[in-house]
């Protein structure tokens, strides 16, 4: 262990905090946008849609993120060029940012995981809330928007936080599809000196920091909602 190497690995890794956080945040956002409607479809047993989504979610949940990531990479390396050629678009696989591939794989994972979270949260809202909303003359969509979803979102926060942290940690897998994240940057900076232990410790410290901050942010959100509910 040499602290001066650790310090320079920390600096190299810290330079890639932003891409790493973006690689977790964007899939999280997409996951919320896809996962919430999916959860509603599953919870309210929309015929066909529910069965399709059930199967899809359990399939996705069964595939390791790493496998998904590498499969996406292979698929795009094999067919991206020919698809773009047949569409007449001037893009090539070589120019494709590898973060997009990693992001797409993580978004699929996030959508499946978050749909499970939202479904659980929906189930936690008592049936009486629906009856009361309808009795007050609210339409179905009004009841959803004003009564049900405002209760669903705070309940989903703790599990949502877990998924966000899982995504941040999964961003490290981006290094396996040549996306340069915190870990990759730290390791690359030590490639000449073979100080890999320092590189990985530096990467771990940075990830740890990001995850602890994320956890605190989610806790703040939880407090915010909890205060509003009692006020």
């Amino acid at each position, binding site marked *: *262990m040499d602290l001066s190497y650790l310090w320079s690995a920390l600096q190299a890794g810290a330079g890639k905090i932003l891409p790493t956080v973006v690689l977790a945040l964007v899939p999280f956002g997409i996951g919320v946008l896809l996962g919430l409607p999916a959860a509603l479809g599953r919870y309210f047993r929309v015929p066909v849609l529910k069965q399709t989504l059930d199967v899809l979610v*359990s*399939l996705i*949940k*069964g*595939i*390791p*993120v*790493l*496998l998904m990531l*590498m*499969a996406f990479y*292979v*698929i795009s390396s*094999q*067919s991206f060029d020919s698809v773009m050629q047949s569409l007449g678009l001037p893009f090539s696989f070589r120019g494709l940012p590898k973060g997009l591939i990693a992001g797409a794989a993580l978004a699929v994972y996030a959508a499946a995981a978050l749909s499970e979270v939202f479904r659980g949260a929906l189930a936690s809202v008592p049936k009486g809330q629906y009856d009361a909303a309808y009795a007050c003359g609210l339409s179905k969509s009004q009841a959803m928007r004003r009564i049900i979803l405002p209760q669903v979102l705070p309940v989903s926060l703790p599990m949502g936080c877990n998924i966000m*942290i899982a995504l941040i*940690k*999964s961003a*490290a*897998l981006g*290094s*396996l599809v040549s996306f340069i994240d915190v*870990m990759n940057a730290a390791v690359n900076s030590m490639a000449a000196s073979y100080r*890999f*232990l320092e590189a*990985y*410790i530096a*990467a*771990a410290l940075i*990830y*740890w920091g*990001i*995850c*602890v901050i994320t*956890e605190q942010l989610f806790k703040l959100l939880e407090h915010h909602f909890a205060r509003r509910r009692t006020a």
Partner: protein
Amino acid sequence: MKLFEPEAILRFLPKLLTALPVTLGIVLIASAAGLLLGLLLALSRVERLPVLSQLAAVMVSFLRGTPVLVQMFIVYYGLPLLLNTVGVNIFSWDKIIFIYITYSLNCAAFFSESIRSAVLAVPKGQRDAAAASGLSRAQAYRRIILPQSAVIALPSVGMTLTGLLQDSSLAFSLGILDVMGRANALGAVTSRVLEAYAAAAILFIALTIVFEQAFRGVQRKLAPQNHIAKGTA
């Protein structure tokens, strides 16, 4: 050469099955060692043992807040150096042992959180009642608190286990020939990478479903209402 040949998946599946013991071995060893260590971590925090409790909190936070991939390399590069300073030479150890150690530690952190919240969820009155009945603290844990905590912790322990199963696929990046490593090797040799990945995905999905069903079965069996129902019947 066809772009995607479904028959290749069927050809690959039996070959991947031969790597299944490696994957299951990681899961089994890590969950057993993780459960034991996780229990110790959880109890030292619940009982607020001085020093140990703070140490456990930092360790759990670190293990939960860093990618397993990074932990794996830290153990792989760091543990031999660390032990070397006290005169123990493990540089020649098989890589798989470092994998076992990494996943055991990682699992212990997640298990300890499940166990801790489960122990805290057991009503305080149970503890008082056990003490009033003359049980020592160790007896109270063994006979009263832990059996109830186990039932509460089961769902999240199950989730950690399926997560472990999937995370174990990372071992291939250290060159371990588990299901994922085998799939990669097969893909490279036959240049049917996608088919090999599909075969691995099928295997992982099947295993995940088996795990989930097994846990659901155990949960149904241990559910407290079942015992009450049987007791009154």
